[in-house]
C-alpha cells in the first residue's frame, strides 16, 4: 500500500446500483400504507410456503435424521427409526476403526482441494479474460458472446464430454499432448491417476465465462479518470492493476468467492458423470460420498450427519468470509 493512489473503493463497481437508489423517499411514502403491507405478505406467500416446505422443513428433518439410526434394517420405519444420539457424529469424526471415518476425512480433504482449485482457477481465468475483453478490438462483442458458450453446456454434458476427451487411449487430450506434440512422453490415465485434476479442469472451464462476465461489468464501470491520473503520475500497467483495479473489484471478488466456494463444495454432477458414483479415495467428494452412503448403502443417518457437518462448515466459511470482506459489503450496499 505504499502508494499515493487511493486504495479505498471510491465508487462501488455496481453496474446496477445507479437507478434504483436514486429515490428512496417515495418508497417510504408509497409503501407505509397498511394495504401495501398486506399486499406484500400476499405476494411473498407462495414463495414462503414453498421455501418452508422444500427448504426449511426438510433441513430440520435432516438435522433430526442425523441423530437417528436409519439404515437398511430400520428403513421401513422411516422417520420413526430409533434414536441414535450422537453416534453418527462420533463414528464420523472420532472412530478411527470405522471406514466411514477415513472416508469422510478423505472426502473432506478432496472437497477442500477441489473447491480451492476450482474457485481460484475460475476467478483468475475470469479476471484474465475480462481484462483482455475490456479493450477495443475488432469483433469484441461477438467474442464476448461466444465466450459464454461453455457456461450454457449442461453440467452432465460437460462431464460426458470431458470424460470422453480425457480417455487415456483414444481421448483427444492425450492425442494432442502425447501423439501430436510430444509434450508428454507417456499416456496419463487422467480419470484414474489424476482424477481430481480431471474434474477440476472442466469445472473451471464451465465457470470461467460467468466470472468473466461479472468482472467485465465491474471493469466497465471503473472511473476512467483514475487510470488517467495514475498514468500521469507515472504508474505502470502493473501498478495500475494492483492499486486501482484490484481494490475496486474487491466487492465482486468477494461475492464470487462466497458463492463459488459454496457452489463448488456442493458440486455433484460433473464428478459423478466423469468418475461414477464411487470415484475412489483420490477424488471422492462430500456430495458423492453422502449420496453413495445414503442411497447405495442405505446409511441415511450417516448421510444426514455428514450433510449437517458440511452445512456447519459452510456456515463457518460464511462467517470467515463476512469478517474478511465486511468493509467491501458496506461500500457495495
Amino acid at each position: 500500500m505504499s502508494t499515493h493512489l487511493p486504495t479505498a473503493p471510491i465508487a462501488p463497481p455496481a453496474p446496477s446500483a445507479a437507478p434504483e437508489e436514486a429515490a428512496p423517499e417515495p418508497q417510504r411514502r408509497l409503501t407505509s400504507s397498511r394495504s401495501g403491507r398486506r399486499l406484500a405478505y400476499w405476494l411473498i406467500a407462495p414463495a414462503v410456503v414453498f421455501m418452508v416446505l422444500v427448504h426449511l422443513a426438510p433441513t430440520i428433518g435432516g438435522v433430526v435424521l442425523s441423530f437417528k439410526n436409519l439404515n437398511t434394517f430400520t428403513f421401513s420405519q422411516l422417520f420413526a427409526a430409533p434414536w441414535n444420539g450422537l453416534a453418527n457424529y462420533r463414528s464420523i469424526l472420532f472412530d478411527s476403526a470405522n471406514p466411514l471415518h477415513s472416508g469422510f476425512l478423505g472426502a473432506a480433504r478432496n472437497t477442500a482441494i477441489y473447491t480451492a482449485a476450482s474457485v481460484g482457477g475460475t476467478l483468475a481465468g475470469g479476471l484474465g479474460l475480462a481484462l483482455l475483453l475490456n479493450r477495443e478490438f475488432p469483433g469484441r462483442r461477438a467474442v464476448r458472446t461466444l465466450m459464454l458458450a461453455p457456461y450454457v453446456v449442461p453440467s452432465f454434458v460437460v462431464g460426458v464430454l470431458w470424460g470422453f476427451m480425457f480417455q487415456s487411449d483414444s481421448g483427444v487430450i492425450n492425442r494432442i499432448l502425447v501423439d501430436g506434440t510430444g509434450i508428454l512422453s507417456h499416456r496419463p490415465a487422467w480419470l484414474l491417476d489424476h482424477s481430481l485434476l480431471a474434474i477440476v479442469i472442466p469445472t473451471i472451464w464451465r465457470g470461467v465465462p460467468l466470472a468473466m462476465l461479472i468482472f467485465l461489468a465491474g471493469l466497465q464501470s471503473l472511473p476512467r479518470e483514475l487510470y488517467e491520473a495514475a498514468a500521469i503520475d507515472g504508474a505502470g500497467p502493473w501498478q495500475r492493476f494492483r492499486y486501482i483495479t484490484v481494490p475496486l473489484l474487491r466487492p465482486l471478488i468477494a461475492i464470487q468467492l462466497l458463492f463459488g466456494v459454496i457452489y463448488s463444495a456442493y458440486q455433484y454432477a460433473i464428478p459423478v458423470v466423469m468418475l461414477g458414483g464411487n470415484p475412489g479415495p483420490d477424488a471422492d467428494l462430500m456430495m458423492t460420498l453422502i449420496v453413495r452412503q445414503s442411497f447405495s448403502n442405505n446409511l441415511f443417518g450417516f448421510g444426514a450427519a455428514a450433510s449437517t457437518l458440511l452445512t456447519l462448515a459452510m456456515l463457518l466459511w460464511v462467517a470467515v468470509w463476512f469478517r474478511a470482506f465486511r468493509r467491501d459489503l458496506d461500500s457495495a450496499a
Partner: protein
Amino acid sequence: MTAFTLSPRRRRRLTGIALTVLTYVLLVLMLAPIVWLVLSSLQTRGHLADGVYDFLHPTFAAFGEMWRSVDFGRYFANSLVICTAAAGIATAFASFAGYALARLSFRGSRTFGVSVVATQLIPGSMFLLPLFLGFIWLKQNTPIRLFDTHIGMILVYTAFFTPVAIWFMRYFFQQIPRELEEAAMVDGCTRFVALIRVVLPNAAPGVTATFVYAFLMAWDELLFVTALTEHTAETIPIGIRNFMGNYAEEYAQLMAAGVVSTIPVMIAFFATQRWLVKGLTAGAVKG
C-alpha cells in the same frame, strides 16, 4: 511530439495486436471442447474408439440411433415438461415476491430477503434425504404420489429455483420507473392490478430472462432427479447416465445425446442473452 513519440506508439500498437491475437486464441480454446462434441457426434462408433476421425465424411447416423438405444425421447419430453412447468411457476412466484422486495416495505422484508439467500447455503443432500423419505412415506401412507411423478419433480424444482428467480425479478423491477404504476394507481387501479397490467408487461424482458435462467438450472439438475425418480419422471441427465451404464461403447450416440441436450438451452440462452447477462451480473453484485 515528433520523432520520439512514434516508437512507444508503435510498441503500444504491437502490444495491442498481440493481446487481440491472444484473446482469439483463448476463444478458440474455450470453444474447442464444444466443437469437439459436435464433431464427435458426426463420426461413427469405430472412429471414436480408435480416436482417428474422418472429418470428410460426417454422418448423422448417431442422431438417429440414439433415440432407439435408450428411450431418449421420453427423457427429453420429461425434461421439457418438468423444467418448463417449474421455471414458469418459479418465475410467477418470483415476480410477486420480487415486486414486494423491490417496491413495498413490510415488517420482515429483511428477514425474507436474507432467507432467500440463505436457501443457497444449504447443501442439497441436507434436504434431499428428508424429501426422499417424505415422498416415500406419502406413497406408503397416503394417496399422494410425489415420488417418481412429474408433479413431485415440478414442486421440488419450483422451490429450488424460486429464490434465485426472486433475486432476478427484484433487480428487474428496480429498473422500472415508479411513475408507471403510480400513474396507473392515480387512475384508480389497485396496486395489484397495476402490477399485473402495467409493471409486468414493462418487465417482460426481465420475466423472460428469469424464466430462461430457472429453466437452465432445472435442465441441469441431476442429484434430485436421481434420488426422487425411478422409471416415470426421469429427465435427460438420467438418460445420459443410462447411456453410459448400458451403452458404454456407443460414444457417437452419447455425443449426439450431448448435442441434443445442449441445443435447447443454447438457443434459449443466446436468444435472451442481453437480459440474462444483466440479471446474472446484477445478481452477483447485489448478492
